[in-house]
């Protein structure tokens, strides 16, 4: 039987000065007292000005080659920067997807021209991506996607609808997962296309979430004509490519730090006189985070060595989402408060924002049940 093992995590202590630089930058850019409720937006807070500043500091496209505007830093250095941004609740949403997974995807599968055109702009914090995977009838069952790209003389003709497209309204490009041919295997015949969001025939419509916020969209393709150079990688390899991309999508510290702002706020509230109940709660949560960080750094080490950490990332994401969703429940037992959106009391508003975001933690990037199905398969149960 297989048991997934994690290699020992590399230490980040050699990057202490980088960590310090990021902290100083964050304090300077966001201010010493960036509100906790803003921090609680975690990686859904969108601020293009902030993304550009980050790019100017060389903290986007960190692992990309210099000739594409990157900085040839290690995966571990990128890890340090990313976790500092998340812990501070910095508004990273604009560039998040581009920096995390679209840039590696383009580096791997893009044409030279696409790399030259796009990667430097990602590294500068000026070019943003969204992911076209889910559809009205294709959520967890990604292979059920029906958006089609027909081959025509000038390239592709695309029709279909993508759903839950995070930041579709702010993105310059989409990486579109769609059907390019009929195949017996339902995972076959799929491809990834690079879509310029300004192409005629694309309409982006907001979907407001339960908190009243606009993060995701439906994106419709009505006879959209794409050039043949839009193809990323090989036609028919879309499934394999997307699965590879998920390793990046699931592996980062954003998968266990979504509720960190609330934990920090809870600690602030109880710190004057922590009773036994709150000490036990805080000690426990800090322990869980220490072990999750260890596991996450182990994944970063695998990325660094060019290994595929998709299983390990799946495990970290599942454990991380459980913890992220536990934090608001623990908070209300330790320091009871009625949640109120927009309250001037930082704890109440941070609690509200985290609680209202919490259902998404075990949905986005693969539902809990899908992740556990993947883990079960790794145990040779399926």
């Amino acid at each position, binding site marked *: 039987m297989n048991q997934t093992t994690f290699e020992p995590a590399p230490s980040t202590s050699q990057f202490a000065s980088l960590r310090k630089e990021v902290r100083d930058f964050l304090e300077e850019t966001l201010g010493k007292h960036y509100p906790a409720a803003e921090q609680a937006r975690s990686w859904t807070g969108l601020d293009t000005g902030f993304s550009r500043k980050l790019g100017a500091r060389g903290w986007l496209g960190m692992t990309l080659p210099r000739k594409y505007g990157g900085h040839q830093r290690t995966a571990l250095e990128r890890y340090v920067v990313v976790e500092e941004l998340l812990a501070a609740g910095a508004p990273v949403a604009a560039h998040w997807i581009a920096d995390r997974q679209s840039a590696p995807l383009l580096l791997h599968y893009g044409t030279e021209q696409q790399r030259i055109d796009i990667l430097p702009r990602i590294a500068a914090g000026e070019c943003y991506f969204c992911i076209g995977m889910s559809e009205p009838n294709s959520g967890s069952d990604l292979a059920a996607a029906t958006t089609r790209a027909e081959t025509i003389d000038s390239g592709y003709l695309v029709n279909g609808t993508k759903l839950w497209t995070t930041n579709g309204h702010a993105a310059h490009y989409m990486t579109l997962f769609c059907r390019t041919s009929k195949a017996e295997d339902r995972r076959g015949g799929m491809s990834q296309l690079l879509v310029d969001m300004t192409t005629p025939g694309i309409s982006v419509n907001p979907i407001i979430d339960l908190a009243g916020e606009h993060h995701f969209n439906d994106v419709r393709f009505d006879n959209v004509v794409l050039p043949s150079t839009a193809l990323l990688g090989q036609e028919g390899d879309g499934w394999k490519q997307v699965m590879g991309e998920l390793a990046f999508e699931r592996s980062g510290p954003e998968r266990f730090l979504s509720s960190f702002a609330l934990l920090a706020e809870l600690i602030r509230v109880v710190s004057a006189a922590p009773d036994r109940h709150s000490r036990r709660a*805080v000690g426990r949560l*800090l322990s869980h985070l220490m072990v999750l960080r260890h596991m996450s750094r182990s994944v970063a080490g695998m990325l660094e060595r060019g290994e595929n950490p998709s299983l390990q990332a799946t495990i970290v994401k599942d454990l991380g989402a459980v913890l992220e969703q536990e934090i608001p429940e623990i908070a209300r037992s330790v320091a009871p408060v009625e949640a109120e959106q927009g309250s001037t009391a930082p704890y109440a508003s941070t609690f509200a924002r985290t609680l209202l975001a919490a259902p998404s933690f075990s949905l986005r990037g693969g539902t809990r049940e899908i992740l556990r199905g993947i883990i079960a398969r790794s*145990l*040779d*149960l399926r």
Partner: protein
Amino acid sequence: MSDMVSETAERLFSAPRTDDGEGGLSQAFWAQISDAGLPLGLLDESAGGFGLTAREALSIARIAAAHAAKAPAAETMLANWILANAGLDLAEGPATIAFGLTLGKDLKLSGELQRVPWGRDAASIVLLTQDRKVIHLSGGWECRHGLNLADEPRDDLIVDCTLRPGRAADANFDPKTYLALCAMLRVASISGAAQAALGLTVTYANDRVQFGKPIGKNQAIQQNLAIMATQVAAACAAADMVAAAFPPHAANEAIFQTIAAAAKLRAGEAAGICASIAHQVHGAIGFTHEYQLHPLTKRLWSWRDEFGSENHWAEEIADAFFSEGDVTPWDFLTRQD
């Protein structure tokens, strides 16, 4: 080297044994463990060890646990490290670790030590006294037998003796560090027993047929086994995390304590979840004395409470954090690397 140690431990601990008594240690078994050098696993080469990393050395505890081995291999390994560190002679056989008592005038030592692992079989006891001495005891106690849930000896020792000269040294560490070191052993052991329980449970789920198919084909079972696998992974990561912080030294003592505490808490939590799922999937067969799941789950249930339960360590970590006043939670987490 690491492969060699793992292979040796695997061979030794997986061999079927007929000489296991109720509770106590088989002398023949110990002779094999000792001949293989395992009790010296944590020592530096300069102190008589083989230059293993802590992770490699602690794999001995992990593998012993996976086979529910009845021997104080882990305890002796740590006892020897503490002795070497304090400049005292190494253990003269199976050894264990205990906390308490105060060294009196004229090197007199008396009082009771409770629930000492493998006390009845120990040739040497490493005693960490309340007045911060490390003492190498090799006799002078009476033993009142006790057991943990897994029938591992946890004996009360009534000590009344006068130490031989050269058997006591000032402790190099805070008492909490010694407890943290013991916790580190249990983390490694929990990770091994949990891994083994997962292996047994997955095999059972694939073999046991109900409703015309292996029960492991049911999504409900798969989801529970996936949860168990994530908990096993967390326990193993906790073991790696504390191994990477070993050995404690003057400059990192507080950090070592915190890391060991977090690791024990996390592994302890995993232990309970893993035992519960393993039994649920096994059904009635896993509840029998004959089937060999219970030696693993009983160890998990016992070890999570030994050397500090989850609540104990949670409070310790919180105290360490809150006592500093101006450190942010994020600083606290990131300086542990």
